[in-house]
């Protein structure tokens, strides 16, 4: 197998974190090699959009072709009636999991960020010290100020750097809550994005008028990585309402932008279609000596074509929170527990934001299916004394009607053409029976229903649990690499948030005068679970979905005994190995992880530069 020339830094993964680090290192004159398992960034997004337009199910994966050489899970693989457990039907081996891990990722140039929504939240100060403040979960080895205020010798905070690179649109005044601070005089790169009519409706009916468990119910605009003015050579948002799975006009930031800047430095090389499968370590020094990868020729068909060894002075793993631990665990020739795993924590503490969907109809039209997918939410409940007892959540207002919640507009359109009632609104016939409509009556009724749809999404903070873990399956993928095996469940601490979410929904819906159409939890659906209140004995049933936020499997910490990396994102075990991205989060808090991934990447880049010296 051919050796690659030696680089200063080898990075596994051309996603958000990998691109930012490569860009920063390249600017500093360091030679960087990125190994990316997937295909190259295409010249234009025509092929992705054509594929998206012609897919029946517009899932997050819908624009992006399957690749047997670098396989990944899809939302459609999280099938009901136990299908999610069948490893013949899925990439993730969940055959022994209690609940289905329901979030997915992409393996290709630009990474999973092709289909992020754009929500760019800073974490809150208390998010970093859950154990100290609430005797729950664990503390991060860093604090808010490490990301939100400039560190010694710097003029910008890492959150500032991340927001500038992404081009976040927001207003400081509307983002200063629950202890969040900004560098003095800070201004977001782009102005705040206008709220939708749906947002305005909830603002007028519930904002500042309610409390919940002694906390105020306050609506805030969502800081977003999408252009509210021409920025960075890219167009302004046109409200394509398609952020997930792909923005047709690149008004929404994606890492190909940063990757291109990295390539512009002239110091960054990317090898695509190179699946890293082993991290090699020297027995004596414990230093990483290289990363072995398998190459293949064609995305559409199994086509291995040899491999190589990527070598550098320092190594960075940025392959997202399932493939990164899988790579470390698979690197078990010398170290049976895998590379970087003296703590035994590699793969453990897998977290997501289990998503609780509630949806309904307003009395008057609010005209959903317009604008970005989400522009506001209830953010005042992300922190509070209740976190001693139950997980916190943020509440996202969806702008896409019942598209996510009920597979609309197909479901409701079919209801009124066929005379069924799968969506729940078709009860206007005699005795509440469904109507079967055509012509003007059909148009009128469809217009009436669709223009009043809305949905809430509760992003619940899942607690880190040892048993929620990525391990190696005995089943292999088409290149002979073990597939990830998942063990996943929701703790009672997490489940209690669903109880609260349902109570808040009832309260808010009543205050806003809206009618709920949320369907009862269905045991045959994959995300079905129950919670029994130990005091009352009452059992409630819920359904959760994945939010697409995969986090926690190589956590950072204060000691080598209970974490994988230190506060500088460097492995305790191997002095030339960094791990970054959402893998290193000790907790998931309530904010979408993207901005924090980016901020940590900027910090990791500085640490790497320091270690390399001048």
């Amino acid at each position, binding site marked *: 197998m051919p050796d690659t020339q030696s680089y200063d830094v080898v990075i596994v993964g051309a996603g958000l974190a990998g691109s930012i680090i490569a860009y920063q290192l390249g600017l500093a004159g360091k030679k960087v090699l990125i190994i990316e398992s997937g295909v190259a960034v295409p010249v234009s997004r025509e092929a992705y959009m054509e594929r998206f337009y012609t897919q029946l199910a517009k899932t997050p994966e819908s624009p992006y072709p399957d690749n047997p050489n670098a396989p990944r899970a899809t939302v459609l693989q999280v099938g009901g009636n136990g299908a999610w457990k069948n490893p013949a039907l899925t990439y993730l081996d969940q055959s022994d999991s209690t609940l289905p891990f329901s979030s997915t990722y992409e393996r290709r140039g630009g990474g999973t960020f092709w289909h992020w929504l754009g929500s760019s939240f800073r974490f809150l100060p208390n998010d970093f010290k859950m154990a100290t403040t609430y005797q729950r979960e664990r503390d991060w080895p860093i604090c808010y100020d490490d990301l939100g205020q400039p560190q010694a010798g710097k003029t910008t905070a890492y959150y500032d750097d991340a927001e500038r690179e992404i081009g976040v649109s927001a207003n400081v005044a509307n983002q200063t809550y629950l202890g969040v601070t900004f560098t003095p005089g800070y201004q977001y790169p782009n102005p705040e994005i206008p709220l939708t009519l749906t947002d305005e409706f909830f603002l007028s009916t519930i904002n500042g008028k309610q409390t919940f468990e002694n906390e105020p119910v306050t609506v805030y605009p969502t800081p977003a990585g999408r252009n509210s003015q021409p920025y960075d050579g890219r167009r302004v948002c*046109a409200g394509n309402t398609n952020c997930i799975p792909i923005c047709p006009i690149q008004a929404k930031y994606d890492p190909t932008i940063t990757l291109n800047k990295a390539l512009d430095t002239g110091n960054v090389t990317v090898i695509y279609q190179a699946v890293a499968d082993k991290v090699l370590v020297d027995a004596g020094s414990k230093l990483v000596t290289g990363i072995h990868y398998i190459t293949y020729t064609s995305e559409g068909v199994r086509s291995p074509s040899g491999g190589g060894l990527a070598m550098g002075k320092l190594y960075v793993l940025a392959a997202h929170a399932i493939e990164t631990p899988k790579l470390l665990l698979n690197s078990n020739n010398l170290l049976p527990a895998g590379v970087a795993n003296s703590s035994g924590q590699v793969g453990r503490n897998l977290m997501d934001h289990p998503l609780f969907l509630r949806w309904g109809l307003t009395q008057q039209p609010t005209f959903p299916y317009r604008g970005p997918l989400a522009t506001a939410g209830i953010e005042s409940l992300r922190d509070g004394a209740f976190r001693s007892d139950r997980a916190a959540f943020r509440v996202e207002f969806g702008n896409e009607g019942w598209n996510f919640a009920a597979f609309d507009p197909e479901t409701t359109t079919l209801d009124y053409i066929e005379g069924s009632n799968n969506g729940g609104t078709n009860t206007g016939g005699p005795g509440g029976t469904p109507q079967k409509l055509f*012509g*003007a009556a*059909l148009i009128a009724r469809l217009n009436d229903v669709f223009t009043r749809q809305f949905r809430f999404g509760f992003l619940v903070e899942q607690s880190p649990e040892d048993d929620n873990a990525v391990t190696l399956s005995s089943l292999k993928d088409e290149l002979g690499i073990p597939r990830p095996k998942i063990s996943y469940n929701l703790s009672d601490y997490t489940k209690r948030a669903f109880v609260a979410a349902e109570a808040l929904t009832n309260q808010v819906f009543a205050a806003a005068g809206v009618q709920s159409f949320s369907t009862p939890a269905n045991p045959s659906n994959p995300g079905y679970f129950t919670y029994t209140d130990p005091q009352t004995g009452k059992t409630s049933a819920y359904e959760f979905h994945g939010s697409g936020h995969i986090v926690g499997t190589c956590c950072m910490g204060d000691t080598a005994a209970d974490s994988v990396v230190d506060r500088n994102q460097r492995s305790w075990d191997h002095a030339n190995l960094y791990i970054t991205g959402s893998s290193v989060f000790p907790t998931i808090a309530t904010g979408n992880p993207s901005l924090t991934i980016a901020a940590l990447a900027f910090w990791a880049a500085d640490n790497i530069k320091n270690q390399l010296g001048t």
Partner: protein
Amino acid sequence: MSTLTISVFVDLSSALTGVAASQLKPQIDPINIAGQYFATLTSHVAEPTLIKLVTTFQAAGNPVAGATAVLADPVLGPVARSIMKLWFLGVWYDPAKPTQAVNVVSAQAYKESLVWRVMQSHPMGYSMFTYGYWAKQPPALNQFIQPA
């Protein structure tokens, strides 16, 4: 014996969907979505059924009565409902399996699918509106849909 022509197909579609024929197939038509749907339909449905569709529709004397008669027929009804789904959703559904989508006819069909105009909006992924439009009331329904 009159076979189904595009012209009759558009008239029937107009009666079924409630959308004016001139919107389904404009005089000057660079997209020709009607032609695509016509081709889709005639490639999946046998000629005798198409002939019966025409005769039943035209025998009724006015479009609404024609659509009613077609929809009530055990064989023609499912075909007519597949036609409606083509126009509203851009998706072909087999009349024999009316809730199981077969395929999106084309990217153009998705982009031209009418349900989004019925809700006074645009297909997700294809907005030809300007920045900030979502903060304002949309134009009225009759600016999106010309009634039949």
